[in-house]
């Protein structure tokens, strides 16, 4: 009974607005919070990437012993940290780095997860069984600890190896999701028809089934982006994220582990914390609105 109702609603929606993107746009405009988040996010991204273009990272991370822990002033808008480095510059570059690595990891985990899940779901049977056991195994690993151990023992450690390590242990969620959808999708008539016509499996998977899952993929990747930014800053906070010379939001927050800084020097850690929270909240808001747009039952607009 429930199913019928959903399909009915679906039919109606499709009859009114055939374009999926129109629905997404309408949902975001209707949801004032998501609209505000999207605008805020765009402004932050443009500002961060724009301003960091004019900042010199070498200059910012250079230690200046004559201006340690200066409160905010004319020369240093947000004061300086324990090494006399300008907090504002670190904040901008840190946000850029955190965002970039978040996007990089999200895309890489997305690609691996989509291929893995698609193969498992589309072929089913034994292939599915074997692949899912591998996935199960990755999923029970204690993520944080394994990543920290890898970060500690990789000899030539840099931004690329950090994002690869993160990717290696984060692709399972999206793979599982794609697999369950692909299992449903392959039973549909268009796949069967295509098979009868002799289309190759590879072509069916990636040119016919994949576009049908695109909305789901976009939603998941948006939500993953928020989670990945949180994970990156968490790892940097513990000292196992970016190398010292590369500013990150998490590194700025980690200075607050010094009780003196936590209690008296708010300018070092509060802006970075607020920025992490704002980034994660607004990406989540946009993601939730996208999720509603793809699910007819929850749509508001």
């Amino acid at each position, binding site marked *: 009974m429930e199913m019928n109702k959903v399909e009915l609603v679906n039919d109606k929606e499709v009859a009114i607005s055939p374009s999926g993107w129109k629905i997404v746009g309408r949902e975001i405009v209707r949801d004032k919070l998501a609209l505000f988040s999207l605008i805020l996010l765009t402004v932050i991204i443009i500002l961060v990437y724009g301003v960091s273009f004019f900042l010199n990272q070498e200059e910012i991370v250079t230690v200046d012993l004559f201006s340690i822990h200066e409160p905010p002033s004319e020369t240093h808008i947000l004061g300086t940290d324990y090494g006399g480095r300008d907090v504002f510059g670190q904040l901008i570059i840190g946000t850029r780095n955190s965002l970039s690595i978040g996007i990089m990891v999200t895309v890489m985990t997305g690609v691996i997860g989509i291929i893995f899940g698609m193969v498992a779901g589309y072929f089913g049977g034994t292939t599915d069984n074997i692949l899912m*056991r591998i996935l*199960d*195994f990755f*999923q*029970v*690993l*204690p*993520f*944080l*600890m*394994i990543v*920290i*151990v*890898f970060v*500690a*023992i990789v000899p030539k450690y840099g931004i690329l190896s950090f994002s690869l390590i993160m990717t290696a242990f984060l692709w399972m969620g999206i793979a599982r999701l794609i697999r369950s959808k692909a299992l449903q999708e392959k039973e549909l008539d268009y796949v069967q028809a295509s098979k009868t016509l002799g289309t190759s499996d590879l072509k069916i998977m990636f040119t016919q089934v994949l576009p049908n899952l695109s909305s789901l993929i976009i939603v998941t990747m948006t939500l993953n982006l*928020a989670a990945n930014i*949180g994970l990156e*800053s*968490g790892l940097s*906070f*513990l*000292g*196992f994220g970016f190398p010292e010379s590369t500013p990150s939001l998490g590194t700025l*927050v980690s200075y*607050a*582990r010094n*009780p003196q800084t*936590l*209690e008296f020097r708010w300018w070092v*850690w509060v802006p970075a*914390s607020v920025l*992490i*929270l704002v980034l*994660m*909240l607004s990406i*989540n808001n946009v993601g939730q609105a996208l999720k509603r747009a793809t699910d007819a039952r929850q749509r508001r607009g």
Partner: protein
Amino acid sequence: MWKFTLRRIVTMIPQVLLLSIIVFILAKMMPGDALSGMVDPNIDPNTIAEKREALGLNDPWYQQYTRWLGGVFQGDLGQSFHFKMDVSELVWQRIVNSFWLSLLTLVLTYLIAIPLGITSGRYNDSWSDRLITGYTYIGFAMPIFIFALVMLWVFGFYLDLFPTGGSVEPGIEPGTFEYIMSKIYHMLLPALSMALITTVSTVQYLRSEIIDTKQKDFILTARAKGASESRVYNRHILRNSLLPIAAFLGYEITGLIGGSIFIENIFGYPGMGQLFLNSILLRDYSVVTALVLLFGILSILGALLSDIILSLVDPRIRIK
């Protein structure tokens, strides 16, 4: 039911074995070995080479692996290079602290989640529901380390209500009532910080579960029979909505492991997460290996626990 549990336990064995192989490989990749911590570097290199041969460090990897695994089964996890004591003994000291902290966190998590979830589900779209949903929205996006720092700043430093580090007041006789109270007092702030964040997903789940159940036909029947509103909620809806929450318990354990690393680090609480980070920084790799293995086994057991509870609660899963 027993069949399902047995089958589930059998699938667990290869997982544990694979985990042990990965941990072993990690241990081999780490610089230094069992010997480098024990001998004086000034000793003649030939003597060291002989020692290595005698300890079997030049054997093929599978021989070393089986020997290591045999040791692990007997509780021999090697020597800590920094603390100069058996790893198993060291880990045991910390496990007790971590166990109590996790237990308190779990209790607080459910103490917060159940009333909030019920209020929010029962009176959905009211003001209290909107407040609770707002809290879960922010809590969902809030990284645990930022929240813990804010809690430490507000309650530990600004209001000065709670201690800001350690697990017990120094100089109190162990075993006395005062000692136990001091332990709980030290655990309260870390546990509360972690619980307030981890509870969020449970609240969200409980809310949607109650809203879903509310519209089912059997609730209509119960109302038609003349059951009072409180009976409908406490007997009919709650029983159906609370059980799936119980199944989350196992997955919570996995979450607690990750969270405890941050929490113990921020509050300076001497548990396993703290030991793990310190050992990494001190390059005390035998401790690191033991902890990764231990945490891995704990999360495998957590998943097992969840699946078994789920199969008890929802018979449909057993058939698969």
